[in-house]
């Protein structure tokens, strides 16, 4: 397996604050890795060290086979969390400038710009000044600045933060496209749902330490889901207390059910550990006629909160954590 990126026992402190502690990470070439964790976990510090913008206090780094990203700058695309543009510069000129800095010839860069802008839904904005674009449009331009030179390694720090849904969709498509082209992609996000949808592999960071480093497939197996969403066919039954009670007793009577919570018009059924969800679903369906029955998907939030809560944290702490990593909690941005 060829390695795109490797960190070995990396430490970084800022004054008295430990930002990253004992970080080990290996990203194989061609992988799509997600680095997740709440705000302030140390994601950006890790990425800046990978980019040689910051330097670790101790530990080793290897980027595309080099000891420092500085030696492979032209093969890396980077979209920092703190990203800006030259406000007075024209969009086309800015992209060409970034392309040239990344080693492209001016003509090559100039030839790519119109096509790239077209692809992200911004045809013909080359001659506009950056300050004349909306925030969402600018973020797409910034993304293009990171990929214009077709990098082998693409590092995206919170690529979706502050984006409108349309931009998020366009960006996601293009990140996946870069990945299909063969680029190794490492993206960080505090919105775990984004990582869940896209990444093959996730790394969780909490308080500067790596707490999880797993392929998504493996994660799904390891944290086997024991929750089934059940919506009865007879809606009226749940509306009346009597009917609801009858449903709950019928469902509880099925062996392997640990508990049932009544939600608005549906039930959340938690299974006993070790029960086979597939068999349970057919048994539940024969007990009460379902309108919809599905196995709840594992969310990274659940995994994260479970991992962290296994420590000394109480329920309040894990709730707070859950709130900070819940999908769409963009307002928590530092």
């Amino acid at each position: 397996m060829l390695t795109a990126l490797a960190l070995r026992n990396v430490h970084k402190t800022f004054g008295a604050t430990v930002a990253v502690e004992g970080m080990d990470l290996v990203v194989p070439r061609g992988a799509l890795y997600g680095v997740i964790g709440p705000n302030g976990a140390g994601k950006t510090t890790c990425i800046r060290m990978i980019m040689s913008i910051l330097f670790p206090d101790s530990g080793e780094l290897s980027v595309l086979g080099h000891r420092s990203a500085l030696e492979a700058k032209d093969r890396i695309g980077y979209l920092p969390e703190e990203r800006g543009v030259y406000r007075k510069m024209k969009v086309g000129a800015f992209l060409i400038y970034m392309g040239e800095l990344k080693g492209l010839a001016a003509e090559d860069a100039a030839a790519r710009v119109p096509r790239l802008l077209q692809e992200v839904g911004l045809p013909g904005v080359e001659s506009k000044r950056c300050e004349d674009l909306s925030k969402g449009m600018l973020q797409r331009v910034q993304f293009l600045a990171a990929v214009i030179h077709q990098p082998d390694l693409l590092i995206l720090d919170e690529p979706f933060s502050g984006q409108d849904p349309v931009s998020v969709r366009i960006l996601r498509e293009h990140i996946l496209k870069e990945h299909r082209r063969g680029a190794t992609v490492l993206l960080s996000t505090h919105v775990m749902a984004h990582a869940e949808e896209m990444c093959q592999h996730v790394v969780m960071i909490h308080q500067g330490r790596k707490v999880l480093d797993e392929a998504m497939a493996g994660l799904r197996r390891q944290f086997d889901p024991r929750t089934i969403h059940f919506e009865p066919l007879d809606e009226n039954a749940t509306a009346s207390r009597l009917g609801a009670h009858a449903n709950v007793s019928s469902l509880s009577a099925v062996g392997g059910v640990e508990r049932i919570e009544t939600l608005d018009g549906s039930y959340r059924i938690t299974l006993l550990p070790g029960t086979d969800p597939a068999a349970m679903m057919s048994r539940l369906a024969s007990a009460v006629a379902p309108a919809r029955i599905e196995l709840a998907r594992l969310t990274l939030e659940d995994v994260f909160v479970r991992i962290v809560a296994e420590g000394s944290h109480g329920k309040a702490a894990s709730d707070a954590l859950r709130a900070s990593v819940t999908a769409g909690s963009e307002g928590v941005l530092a």
Partner: protein
Amino acid sequence: MKQSLRRIGLVARREFMAAVTNKGFVIGLLLMPAIIALLFAVFPRVLNRNVPAVRGEVAVVDPTGQVAGALRTALTADAITARRRESAMRALQNAPTVVRDAATSPAAIERTVGAAPELTILDRPAGADLQREKQWLTEPVAAGGLRHIALVVVHPDAVVAAGRTEYGSYDLFIPENIDDRLEIELYDAIRESLVAARIRNHNLNREEVEAVMRVRRAASVTVAAGAERQTNIAFNRMLPFVFAGLLVFGVMIGGQTLLTQTVEEKSNRVIEVLLSAVSPIELMAGKILGQMAVSMLVLAIYIGIGLVTLMSFAMIGLLDPLLILYLVVFFLISYLLFAAVFSAVGAAVNEMREAQSLMTPVMLLLMAPWMFATVIGREPNSAFAVALSFIPPVNTFAMMIRLGSATPPPTWQVLLTMIVGLAAACAVTWFAAKVFKVGLLMHGKAPDMATLMRWARQA
């Protein structure tokens, strides 16, 4: 290495283009010559509009009986204008003919010094009561009446000398609030009429005497080994200041833009995007070079304007071309030193407001040469001037003033100034680069000098 140079070049090109395509730059470029033109063309007129045309009376007590009549002639408007013209001619003796002719036409003289006063002479008897006459000076005058301007008391031996050569003189009494220029006119006129009376008394011919007295002052020619050039005192006096001014101005233009651009990049958050493509040192080098090109362009334009002006007045021979070379060399040295500081300050702060407190000492250093300019210009080889030539960062400015002066310093001093300047520039750049590197990604509290030192140690 090649890649690194390429990136530095790209950053420099962007900086240069961003600066020169800015509307403010073009305006700024035109503003300087415009201000100078304004100072020379408009300012004197605005000033002189306040000088009123004077109408008044001058009382004369003349026991000799020969002066009052001459004074009456000397104080006619025509005579006053003629004298003014003559003194203007003397002052402009070394100016080019075009300028002299334009500046000494009666209209030009009237424009610069105002209309000639209209003065009436009142003869007082030889035995007049001086106290009463003095009172006359302070008597109020009816609106529109003639002002009582002066009382001239001619000494009895003012025309015929008591001894062989000792002539008497005169006393002049004036009221308060007499314009000093008018007073000078009076001195000149009285002197003129006394001389006229004395010459007549000796039965001499006025024209002959004047011809005997007149010696045109020559324009000296400076002889250097192998070359001669014209000398012009006024030009020589101005030159050091012009060169020092260009030096300061060039450093300011590049330095200021460097500061604002860096602060903008930082507050725009474009910096981290850039840092993924270039190293901090490449970025700093590119920025410094780019702004240097901007400053050089501006200097080239101003020097060009200056040379064209000199040529059109046929004064180009006054300028030693070597001075321009020195200007470029000293500009590069002092620019490098100050630019490094400016960029480090730009990288250290979050916004322009915070830059002010760090910039104050830098600006003082940049302005310091002005405080010493006159002293150095007057005595370019004094111990003080020589010492300043070796103390960075003022050394380059001091040396430029000395080089522009009439007695340029020895070559070894010039070379030493260059070496000291370069060494200082390198040291400061080394320090500034460290601050720049650390400062770029620092946000939050504005750093003070102690913090900057700590950053430099960290980096």
